[in-house]
C-alpha cells in the first residue's frame, strides 16, 4: 500500500519502514531477520514485499518450514543463498530484530501496522484512496496563500463569473453587495488560477454540485479562512443559488457549491454569493460523485477555467 503511494507520487512521498516484531508472534523475529538479511544484499524491499505477499502461505508453518520458505524466496530474488542463510541467523540480525521489539514496546506502539504521517500518528483508514487523498491535501499546501486577499472589488459594481467546464459553461451573477468579502476572495482566486483544471468533487443530484478544491479531495482550502456573510435577503430558495462551503461559521475558503433545488435548511449557515443565470442544464451533466458514499469514486467532471466580467 505505502509502496504503491511512493511509486505513484515519486516526488512527493517517502516511505520509512521500521520493524516492530510483535512478541506474541512466533515467526516475527525470523521474518524481520530475513528482510534484513536480504537488505544486506540490497533487496530489503523485495523481500519485504515477498514476505507480506506470502503471509497466507507461511502463517501456519512451523519455524523450520518458514525458514525454508524464506530461503526459497531468497533464491527467487536472486540472492547469494549461502550468505543469506548465514546472515539470517547471525548474532547481529538476531540482536537487531530483538532490539526492534524492545524499542516498539518502549515507545508503546499500540499495534501494527502503526503509521505516522509527517511525524503525526495516524489512525484513520489505511486504504489507498484515503491515503492518496491525504497526500494530495498536503501537497496543496504549496499553493496556499500566506495573506488574506486584498479587497480589490467595488461592491457597487456588477460581477459575473463564467465557469467553463468540460460539459459546458455556467454563468453566475456574483452578489458583491451582499457578500463582498466572499466575492472578493472568489475573484482573487479566479485571477490566481486556483479554480483552473479542478474537479467537481461532490455532485449529488437534487442537492448540490461542489468544487473549489484543487486537491480534489474535499479537504483543500486556500490557506486563509473568512467568516460567513449572511444577509436577510438571500436564501437557498431556488435552483442555482451559489454558496460557500464551510466547516463552520469562520471557515470559508475556496470551495463553493451550487444548489440543484431549494434547500431552505442551509439558510443562515452558508454564505450566498451568487446565482446561476445560465447553464443549469450544464450542471445537470456533471458526473455524479459522492465522496461520503465510499470508494471507488468516478474521476469527476472538471472546471477548465473561470473568467470574470465587471460592469
Amino acid at each position, binding site marked *: 500500500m505505502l509502496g504503491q503511494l511512493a511509486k505513484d507520487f515519486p516526488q512527493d512521498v517517502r516511505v520509512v519502514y521500521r520493524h516492530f516484531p510483535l512478541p506474541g508472534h512466533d515467526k516475527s523475529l525470523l521474518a524481520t531477520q530475513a528482510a534484513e538479511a536480504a537488505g544486506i544484499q540490497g533487496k530489503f524491499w523485495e523481500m519485504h514485499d515477498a514476505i507480506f505477499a506470502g503471509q497466507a502461505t507461511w502463517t501456519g508453518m512451523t519455524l523450520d518450514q518458514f525458514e525454508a520458505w524464506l530461503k526459497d524466496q531468497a533464491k527467487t530474488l536472486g540472492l547469494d543463498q549461502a550468505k543469506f542463510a548465514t546472515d539470517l541467523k547471525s548474532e547481529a540480525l538476531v540482536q537487531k530484530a530483538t532490539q526492534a521489539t524492545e524499542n516498539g514496546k518502549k515507545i508503546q506502539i499500540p499495534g501494527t501496522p502503526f503509521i505516522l504521517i509527517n511525524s503525526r500518528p495516524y489512525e484513520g483508514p489505511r486504504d489507498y484512496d484515503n491515503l492518496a487523498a491525504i497526500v494530495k491535501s498536503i501537497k496543496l499546501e504549496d499553493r496556499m496563500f500566506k495573506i488574506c486577499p486584498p479587497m480589490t472589488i467595488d461592491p457597487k459594481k456588477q460581477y459575473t463569473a463564467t465557469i467553463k467546464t468540460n460539459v459546458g459553461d455556467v454563468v453566475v451573477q456574483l452578489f458583491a453587495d451582499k457578500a463582498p468579502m466572499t466575492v472578493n476572495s472568489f475573484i482573487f482566486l479566479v485571477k490566481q488560477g486556483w479554480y483552473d483544471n479542478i474537479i467537481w468533487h461532490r455532485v449529488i443530484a437534487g442537492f448540490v454540485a461542489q468544487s473549489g478544491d484543487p486537491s480534489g479531495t474535499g479537504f483543500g482550502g486556500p490557506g486563509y479562512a473568512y467568516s460567513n456573510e449572511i444577509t436577510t435577503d438571500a436564501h437557498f430558495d431556488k435552483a442555482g443559488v451559489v454558496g460557500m462551503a464551510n*466547516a463552520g461559521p469562520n471557515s470559508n475558503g475556496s470551495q463553493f457549491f451550487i444548489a440543484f433545488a431549494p434547500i431552505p435548511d442551509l439558510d443562515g449557515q452558508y454564505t450566498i454569493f451568487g446565482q446561476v443565470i445560465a447553464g443549469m442544464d450544464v450542471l445537470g451533466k456533471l458526473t455524479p460523485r459522492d465522496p461520503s458514499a465510499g470508494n471507488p469514486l468516478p474521476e469527476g467532471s472538471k472546471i477548465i477555467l473561470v473568467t470574470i466580467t465587471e460592469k
Partner: protein
Amino acid sequence: MKKIWLIFGLMLGAALAACGGGAAAIAPVVPLAATSTAAAVNTQNVEKTSLPTSEPATCTVSSLQPTRTPDPYFPAPDPKTDWIQGPQGAKVTFLEYSDFQ
C-alpha cells in the same frame, strides 16, 4: 462526509480545529488551523446594501501544518537505521512500524 472529516482529524490531531460536519451535508471543507502559527487577521468592513445578520466579515490566515519539534518517541527517519523509499525532500513522509506476521 463525516468519515472524511474523521480521517483528516485523526491525521492532524489536536493541531487542527475539528469540525463535526453538522446537520447540513455541505462538505466540511476547510481544515481551519488553530495552530501555533501566529494568525494574521485582516478585518475588512464593507458597506452592504442588504442587511447583514452576521458580524462584519473577517479573514484569517491559517496554516495546515504547525511547526514540528524533535520527537523523542518517534525520531526522524535516518537512512542509517531505517529502510526508506522516496526522496528525502518529499512533502509527505509515511513512517510505518510494522510486523511481518
